């Protein structure tokens, strides 16, 4: 690991996409979360390597970065599929049957919360609230094409949506 994770400042390193962010924020106190968000945006998740790299650039201990990364729901330490299904489990969605929707998604894709399908097309994440409560139950699908929100879901509707996304991929 140590030889892969070359010291910062070296433009030939494997995390060069992150360099502009590090240049801007590495020495600004209180910027760790911003840096981690940017790193996740670029690489899809926070690998051990990238955590070590950020540690070297900022002088913050890897253990502390790990502590922050695991505290917040947004950060992932594992890679995800091409489409991230954010299934809303907010109160309005719960009252309107989001558990049934979850069952349908899990059954259809053969994965449970937090897992990725074998073909790498879908990852399922339960989230607290997407703020589209009047369209409950709701899910948001994040992919390279942007975010798409689907409302008023039923078991059939969610299966259709997933089938369509799978076909496109």
């Amino acid at each position, binding site marked *: 690991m140590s030889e892969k994770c070359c010291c910062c400042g070296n433009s030939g390193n494997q995390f060069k996409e992150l360099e502009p962010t590090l240049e801007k924020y590495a020495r600004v*106190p*209180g*910027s*760790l*979360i*911003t840096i*981690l*968000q940017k790193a996740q945006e670029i690489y899809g998740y926070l690998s051990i390597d990238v955590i070590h790299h950020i540690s070297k650039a900022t002088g913050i201990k890897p253990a502390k970065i790990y*502590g*922050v990364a695991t*505290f*917040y*729901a*947004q*950060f992932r330490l594992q890679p995800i599929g091409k489409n991230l299904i954010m299934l809303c*489990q*907010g*109160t*309005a969605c*719960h*009252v*309107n049957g989001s558990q*049934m929707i979850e*069952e349908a998604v899990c059954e259809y894709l053969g994965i449970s919360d937090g897992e990725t399908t074998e073909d790498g097309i879908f990852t399922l994440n339960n*989230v*607290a*609230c*997407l*703020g*589209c*409560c*009047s*369209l*409950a139950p*709701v899910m948001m699908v994040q992919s390279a094409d942007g*975010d798409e*929100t*689907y*409302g008023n879901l039923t*078991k059939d509707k969610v299966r259709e949506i997933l089938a369509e996304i799978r076909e496109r991929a």
Partner: protein
Amino acid sequence: MKVIIGQGSCGIATGAKKTQAEFEKQITAQKAKAEVGFTGCVGTCYLEPIVDVYDDNGAFTRYVKVQPEKVERIVAEHIKGGRIVEEYAISKEDEQFIEKQKRVVLRHCGMINPEDIEEYLAVGGYEATKKVVTSMTQNEVIEEIKVSGLRGRGGAGFPTWFKWNAAKGNPGKEKYIVCNADEGDPGAFMDRSVLEGDPHALIEGMIIGGFAMGATEGVIYCRAEYPLAIKRLEKAMEQAREKGYLGKNIFGSGYDFDLRIKAGAGAFVCGEETALIASLEGERGMPRLKPPFPAQKGYWQQPTNINNVETFANVPWIIANGGAAFGAMGTEKSKGTKVFALAGKIKKGGLVEVPMGLPLKDVIFGIGGGIKQDKEFKAVQMGGPSGGCIPKELIDTPVTYEDINKTGAIVGSGGMIVMDENTCMVDMARYFLDFTRKESCGKCNYCRIGTKRMLEILERITKGEGRDGDIELLEELAVKIKDGSMCGLGQTAPNPVLTTIRYFRNEYEDHIYKKKCTAKSCKDLISFHIKDSCVGCTACARKCPVNAISGEVKKKHEIDQNLCIKCGKCEETCKFASIERL
């Protein structure tokens, strides 16, 4: 002519972008003359996508549920022909959803283009800022807010002027004003709508607040789950900077103030102000003991004031119209208006802004139109995971901080989730405890372990394994968790359990002693049966994954209870509503 399409997150989710594309296509194809624009969320979420067609004289017609297939006719008949397509226009009844409200915070939502500062200026935008920085003193601003009686809209209901005054009075090298836009309550989306629909109102509120307390820098802590809100805020800040409303020497007054956005990373506890500050500093968002209060030592140990989005959005209106005008609305102790996010089993879900003091009944039935499918109203949940369930017997309770507190719930940030006869109250308590257990930061033992134990008991009860004494144990734990937790999260986490035990103790007892779920919702406590109305279509038998359903074609079928796994497939499949839960 202008065509304005509502594009808050919920509008976009129902296909507003497709509707917009279709308008652009049809206007070109039919050679019609009209501009296409957009606005934020108007609040009638159940009617999305919503399209307003403005005639040249400024009058507009509102069309609702405008799916792309409706567009061709609207362009041909209204835009080209000048005849309103009555069939697609909003009904008189639905118009009342807005007419019955009193809009202060939402005054511009759905009326102006949130990405165009000129539209905001045209409705009197930044007048309040100008008035404050060029002609008022810090004390005068605070006095005006004091007269208005504005209280924090984030949940606690603390007087805003008091916080501003405290931050002003405390010495510090720098002072900071922070906006809590980390709307973490599941089931609440008031702040999202303001951020997406009227971002300049928030910016103005922060400049005014910053001026009053003597801050030169402001931070908006916005949750990362609201990408559209962040985008629109960024745009609004950029435009305000270009105009000189943010930055150095605002309106030539010599007052410098600038803003930046910090995206939250998803932690409910960061709604607590000391946790929010820790998160702003790049740490784990864990609360600390108070005092010192943020007004004494906050962000980077400097005097800091934190208010939520709705509180700030009220401020420019108060300055422009006077504190007394604001104070004239509402009740003696709860002044002004409050925005509620009406959702759940309600016919007309959306954003509702009403003067405080209005009875719950008027909000749920008067504006929200009552319960979906005309089922029986059971309770309304207010205040999210820190709040509680208010039963139907108390539906005449006026919506004020004091009256709602008496019921055991709280006004909170404004989530109002309506529940009907099919909602199990024990399951609701379990749901909220599951949430707080996950979101507990872990600092206080009672909160970390206590919520886990309460959740385990509730899970047991909903599975039909409840024991004698469980209710008493829950009550005992609840008191301990309240007393033994440092921050608001732990202190209020037991509220959903306590209120449901208080008002729906019979449901708990049914689960524990009779092994029955009153609402027929807990899977382990119900069984599926086929009624005599079965026509023997065999659809359910073919869908059943465990072949538990048998019967001849065109004859009533039966479910073998020993085989049934209660997946509910049969109920979902049956077209004759012949499956019942017992």
